[in-house]
């Protein structure tokens, strides 16, 4: 294979003539600098390669070397709390070797995992035992939060002919030797390789049954996502996609977070890195970085590697899922990945479909989201991958191809809204355009674990917002003054729901994360206020004069008080909420009394 030579160069696309031995998706090294590339098309005459690094200076005639294997991720201890580029090169190591700027030649030597580091490994396999694929033969504490479990790679099973004693090992040290059925021997180290474009096998899918709890009210209470579910966060620039993704990555109750910065800003990845190293995991008090894996292929890094970054992320996630962990992937943003597809497709001069995107856009998106799910792993554990993908629609227009194709394959859609972002209502998830198909499937879980009334409250809250939406059509035309009191009440309560419940302050100590119990109580108080005021303004049938005007109740400032409960009641003291019910009763009582003493001032609607 020494005679393969570069024939043409066009940006990241390189062709080689007469190379029938190169396989599709094979990893190749291109040119004298050994640039990493992948075969993406092959014919009798010409083989096309996409190169993951800058091709500046590459000359026709330079050598191309095949490896016989597809582009793979190295999986083993040292992944968690690390930061990689789109093809799993360790960025910290690159910075150490070549400084602050990523140069082309830097990556050549660096393996994905630190080969020199010693891990304290506990070997659980014993000689003579039979092991099949997915079974755990050794463990080590990767970070304080994550125990790394070494598994027999997929497709391999046999009898253990050698097992090393527990102790300190490097990732490439042989710790177990397996005698396969055909008598051949297979050495197992602490790591394995897996091609990034192939999903890792599982025993089977199992039905979705529990939510991914995020501590964000508009998600947990209104549009929940399940563990093993898929969600899309579409929004124009400045609507807070990244902020929402960061919030979810910080607070959701997955065991491991894979954060893929795909074609986004460099400073954002730096922010995640800095912030997550300082922030503490609410459960263990350890830095969040100890359960986080970052993949950073920023917008100015090579575009082909951006295309690969999504698959690298999901492959790392699958590896940890196979150990029995619940993993959540944040992909920010899938639109940039789609654009990378478009860019490469354009260089290949493929026939474009919608807006220049290749015709296979839709199938690629579906294949990606299909790698999420709640599964039984090969070692009979229940584990999941949840995928939350940001979408950056061109011109904030949700009818563009990436948003539309994503919508078909995700079951939870959190539409971010420019108008909400303008008023600094974050998370700017629009309650009319968003939906979650998981709400039904999770109903049982909510009933059992939060309270049977949770779903009723949710429904009531939604119908208030719905009704407000209708009323606003009228208000926009003629103002709110002409509405009768009961409709005005809807508007006021909806405003309270929006500012006091849906809006959540990511920078407030009490509000950044809210447990489900408090979410339930908050809904309860808001609805209690609604019902009490509704009764108070309706009066009783026999005594119409006992009723109150909404404006009088508004003047007491009780709505304002309730809007602040999100800040004033600490997360760990839900009992404080009962005081608010009494407070509402008390305020209404006083208003009524004051009214009785001064009846002349009351004259219904102003």
């Amino acid at each position, binding site marked *: 294979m020494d005679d393969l030579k570069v024939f043409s160069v066009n940006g990241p696309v390189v062709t080689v003539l007469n190379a029938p031995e190169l396989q599709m998706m094979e990893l190749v090294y291109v040119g004298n600098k050994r640039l990493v590339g992948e075969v993406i098309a092959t014919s009798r005459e010409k083989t096309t390669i996409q190169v993951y690094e800058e*091709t*500046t200076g590459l000359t026709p005639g330079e050598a191309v070397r095949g490896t016989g294997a597809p582009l793979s991720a190295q999986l083993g201890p040292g992944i968690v709390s690390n930061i990689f580029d789109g093809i799993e090169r360790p960025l910290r190591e690159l910075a150490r070797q070549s400084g602050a700027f990523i140069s082309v030649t830097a990556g050549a030597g660096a393996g994905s995992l630190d080969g020199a580091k010693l891990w304290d490994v506990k070997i659980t396999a014993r000689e003579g035992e039979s092991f099949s694929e997915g079974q755990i033969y050794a463990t080590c504490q990767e970070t304080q939060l994550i125990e790394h479990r070494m598994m027999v790679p997929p497709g391999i099973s046999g009898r253990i002919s050698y097992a090393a004693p527990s102790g300190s090992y490097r990732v490439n040290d042989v710790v177990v030797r397996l005698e396969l059925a055909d008598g051949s021997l297979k050495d197992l180290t602490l790591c394995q390789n897996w091609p990034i474009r192939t999903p890792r096998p599982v025993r089977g899918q199992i039905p979705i049954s529990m939510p991914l709890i995020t501590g964000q009210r508009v998600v947990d209470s209104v549009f929940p996502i399940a563990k093993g579910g898929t969600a899309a966060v579409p929004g124009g*620039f400045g609507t807070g996609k990244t902020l929402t993704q960061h919030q979810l990555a910080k607070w959701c109750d997955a065991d491991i977070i894979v954060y893929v910065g795909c074609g986004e800003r460099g*400073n954002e*990845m730096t922010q995640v890195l800095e912030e997550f190293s300082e922030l503490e995991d609410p459960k263990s008090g350890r830095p969040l970085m100890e359960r986080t894996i970052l993949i950073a292929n920023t917008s100015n890094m090579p575009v082909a590697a951006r295309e690969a970054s999504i698959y690298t992320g999901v492959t790392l996630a699958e590896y940890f899922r196979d150990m029995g962990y619940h993993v959540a992937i944040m992909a920010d943003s899938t639109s940039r990945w789609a654009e990378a597809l478009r860019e490469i497709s*354009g260089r290949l001069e493929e026939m474009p479909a919608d807006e220049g995107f290749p015709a296979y856009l839709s199938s690629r998106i579906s294949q990606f989201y299909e790698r999420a799910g709640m599964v039984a792993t090969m070692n009979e554990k229940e584990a999941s991958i949840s995928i939350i993908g940001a979408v950056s629609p061109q011109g904030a227009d949700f009818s563009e191809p990436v948003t539309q194709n994503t919508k078909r394959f995700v079951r939870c859609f959190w539409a971010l809204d420019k108008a909400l972002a303008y008023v600094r209502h974050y998370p700017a998830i629009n309650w009319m355009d968003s939906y979650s198909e998981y709400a039904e499937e999770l109903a049982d879980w909510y009933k059992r674990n939060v309270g049977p009334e949770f779903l009723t409250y949710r429904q009531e809250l939604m119908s208030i917002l719905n009704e407000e939406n209708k009323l606003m059509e009228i208000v926009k035309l003629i103002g709110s003054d002409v509405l009768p009191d009961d409709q005005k009440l809807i508007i006021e309560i909806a405003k309270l729901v929006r500012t006091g419940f849906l809006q959540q302050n990511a920078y407030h100590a009490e509000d950044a994360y809210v447990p489900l119990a408090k979410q339930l109580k908050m809904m309860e108080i808001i609805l209690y206020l609604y019902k009490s005021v509704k009764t108070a303004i309706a009066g009783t049938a026999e005594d119409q004069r006992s009723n109150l005007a909404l404006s009088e109740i508004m003047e007491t400032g009780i709505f304002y008080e309730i809007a602040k409960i999100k800040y004033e009641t600490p997360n760990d003291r839900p009992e404080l909420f009962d005081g608010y019910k009494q407070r509402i009763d008390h305020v209404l009582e006083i208003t009524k009394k004051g009214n009785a003493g001064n009846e002349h001032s009351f004259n219904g609607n102003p």
Partner: protein
Amino acid sequence: MSIALTGIREINGPLLILDGVSSVGYDEMVRLDLADGSRRLGRVVQLEGSRCVIQVFEGTSGLSLSNISARFLGRPMELALSPELLGRTFNGAGQPIDGLGPLYAKKKADINGMPINPVSRVYPKNYIHTGVSSIDGLITLIRGQKLPIFSGSGMQHNKLAAQIVRQANIGEKGESFGIVFAAIGVKHDVADYFRRSFEESGIMEHTVMFLNLSNDPIIERILTPRCALTAAEYLAFEHGMHILVLMTDITAYCEALREFSSSKGEIPGRKGYPGYLYSDLASLYERAGMIQGREGSVTQIPILTMPNDDITHPIPDLTGYITEGQIVLDRSLDQKGIYPPASVLPSLSRLMKDGIGEGYTRADHSGVSNQLFAAYAYVQDARALASVIGAEDLTATDQKYLKFGDAFERQFLSQQFDENRSIEQTLDLGWRLLSMLPREELSRVDDELLEQYYVHEDSGETAESEAAAGGDAR
């Protein structure tokens, strides 16, 4: 290596196609020697066996298949660098045009730069004071940020940029700072306006200018911002200077890119712009920031004119997805005579949240700005309603909002070209305006801050609006 060749096969738009070349690298520079002794520069943009496609920066007019010879320079496009860049003026391809002779180069660097490793970046947190209330108060500029101005033809973006350059404390006391100015396809008088304004503020010797004017070669525009950013990175990261890069007009850059792409026969994306426009713009904008262990910083203020004032046009749209916020100028404010006509609602500074507050500006900054945003957003609703049912029929609160909105535009947004407001002045002004609204409406601010800053009715303005509202309620 340097090989001279004739054998031109085809000339098409800015592209030159050569046959029979060997050992030529992708992205390599080419020098074209014309029969009349003049020279042009080009770059290899595609290689196929022994055929090579060259993009000629100065354009191909006057070239024929027989009157030129090409010489491959064996290296990508490089810019000569030295601290003496400061005070000099170059053309769009980095050649001196100020008559002061060539630059004595300490080093040369590839103008395409290299991506900064996210691990080596420092997350920007230091606030740059600009003295413009709308920016300092609501769209705070942070050192190391890329914050574009989205404008339209005929609006005062240049004036605003000049004011920012004059007033901004780009470097703290004792730190060295510099301005890198890239004119990309703008008219001569615009470039001249900036030169004069730099001279007037006495910072010309801190300024490097790269000028590609509207009558200069179009393809050269693709080089201009890259040269400018290479100079900026050199001064910032090797000489510890705080550099502010002004680039105007990015729209002209994108159009040059489109022209080049279509002459190359590439499949177009949206509106004929190439599919890689996002990646290409990112390769410019991402060259802002700060790096661990180095003192300097690169802050970018690119200016772009939105075609037809359309913010969803691919150029502002893709820019907004890459930059860390945007300052949007609004034509209706401009027509009202408000300068700077910053439309604050669609404007945003993404890095603001970490660079304001206690220790940076003032503890109440974030509260005030959120409240101003929320209140001014509500003003838009109230105005819409007022235009339907008349201002008289609005509720008393809505009428207060209308008054607040007008005062906000007249007093807060609007300021003089030479008015340099301190952050205290800006925030206090914000509080004075917010105090025109009933206290219960200010739900975005903590009670403690309200207690401290809310101005009660005894102030003339508030009392006046109270009286007006009271009158209407009956």
